[in-house]
């Protein structure tokens, strides 16, 4: 097994866990969202990595060239969609954080729970 060849997948796993840790352990809502973005970015990396074919080039048809080896375009398309979804989610999340700031005066989860308990 070529460990170095699987470098991308290691990065994916590490990023995934860093993002996940941030989501779970941080109490600041914006930091949670940052973690979520990181989490999703790791998945983007996974998809793009799997699309790369050894020796493959960008999947663009060129006149006259008929025997080129292309990388798989499908994961790239999928990931564009997922990026859009991720952005929408982050935007929505930040909007909610703004509203929470307006209502509670804080964006720290601990403070919010404290205020709600009263």
């Amino acid at each position: 097994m070529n460990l170095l060849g699987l470098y991308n997948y290691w990065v994916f796993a590490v990023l995934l866990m860093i993002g996940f840790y941030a989501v779970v352990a941080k109490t600041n809502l914006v930091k949670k969202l940052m973690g979520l973005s990181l989490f999703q970015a790791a998945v983007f990396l996974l998809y793009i990595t799997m699309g790369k074919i050894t020796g493959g080039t960008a999947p663009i048809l060129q006149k006259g060239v008929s025997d080129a080896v292309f990388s798989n375009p499908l994961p790239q398309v999928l990931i564009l969609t997922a990026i859009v979804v991720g952005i929408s989610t982050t935007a929505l999340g930040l909007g909610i954080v703004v509203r929470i700031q307006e209502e509670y005066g804080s964006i720290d989860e601990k403070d919010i729970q404290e205020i709600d308990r009263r």
Partner: protein
Amino acid sequence: MTILDAHLPVLPVVVPMLIAPLVIMLRPRGLAWAAATATSSMAFLIAMALAAGALDGEAQRYALGAWAAPYGIELSVDSFGALLLLILTGASTLALLAGKASLDQQLEADRQPLFLSAWLLVLAGLSGILISADAFNIFVFMEISSLASYILVAGGPDRRAMPAVFKYLIMGTIGATFYLIGIGLVYMMTGTLNLTDIQVRIQDVSDLRPILVAAGFITVGLGLKAAVFPLHVWLPNAYNFAPHAATVFLAACATKVSLYILLSFDFVVFQQNLIGHEMQFAAFLMPLAVLGILAASAVALFEPNIKRMLAFSSVAQIGYILLGASMVSLLGMTASLMHMFNHALAKGALFMAVMCLAMRFPSLELDALAGAAKRMPWTMGAFVVGGLSLIGIPGTAGFTSKWYLITASMEFGGAGWLLVAVIVLGSLMAVAYIWRVVEVTCFRQPETGPVEVSEAPRLMLTVTWLVALANVYFGLSPWLQTRLAEGGARMLLGEMP
């Protein structure tokens, strides 16, 4: 009519999705609501047509843009999907019909068009999940519906809706992302995203680790979205603080659609192809289902807020659905699918009754509702009927799935008797928390002085009773959910329909 028939499978998504942006522009009072309700009713009619087709036995297939599968995106409506489409569109239509007065009460007039537009997007997204036969397409629609449902939940007037929806957003996104990882791994190993194609190709690679990992990611991710215990923590607050009409809609169908994908993947795609997977499925999900039933029911027993109590009850009912599925038998699976339908009926009636109560009572804490039955006898009557269906009294819809569940548990052998005890215990706890409400509302003296009958608005009350009576009708004559559920169960377990 043939053009319509040919494109029928895609209409449940197209119709709401086209009208959603138009609704934003409808500023005059009530017009947005009327447009949303009309759209939802159209979707319901389309769902009925699709269900009629599914009852005939054939799964209806459709290729988007006429690109043939497996390269194009394929849609497919089978018994299971048709059953849930009926629940989804029906719940949406009835919730909108009943909820007009409630929405007027809880939302400012200028925010309603935006809210209703999001509602239609949820409808479109969830419909899309149910008709898709392509794994990534499911992801896209799942996120469309999720994002829109975050907006629905955030519409609630209580400021605690904000932290609730934030938690919902975080957990929902993690769940969806896990699902994305899962199908990424599947694509990596099989090279296709079309569900039928995956089923074929996965047989060659079914013992390789990425597939097992993928199965794990998909199960956990969808479990998060379906509020499977212990990943359910987002649900009680989200349902509690959402506007009442939105709760009726979401409680009836949102988690069930996630369960649909979960069961479809785990049974159609993985089950028959994974060595030892059957054992893992049952061994993994059954204890979670049992814990969900018992723990959630126990919490509901002590919850003072009616809406939150019903939300916990929903978590318990999801446990029932999973319990049936985890038995991996025809009877158990049929029970599970039937319970999706029956629970939607029962919870729909209950949450609608709560919506009626909220029209006249400022607080939904049990103590504040003392003597409510004297002021709103018809509302509490509907609540009792819905409650009886939830408990599983014979003559109501809830009984039919309980009967199948108990029979399936007895057939299961071995630990089956323990499962019977769990099911029974869950029902008894449901008796306790429903009857707590009955006692307080019927027999305790109201806080404020003399009481006149001041019922909910007529439309809301009529629709609530319609749903309550539907519980009785489908309890005495459960032909619809039995046939569709059995067809779906056969399909999931791989037998010929």
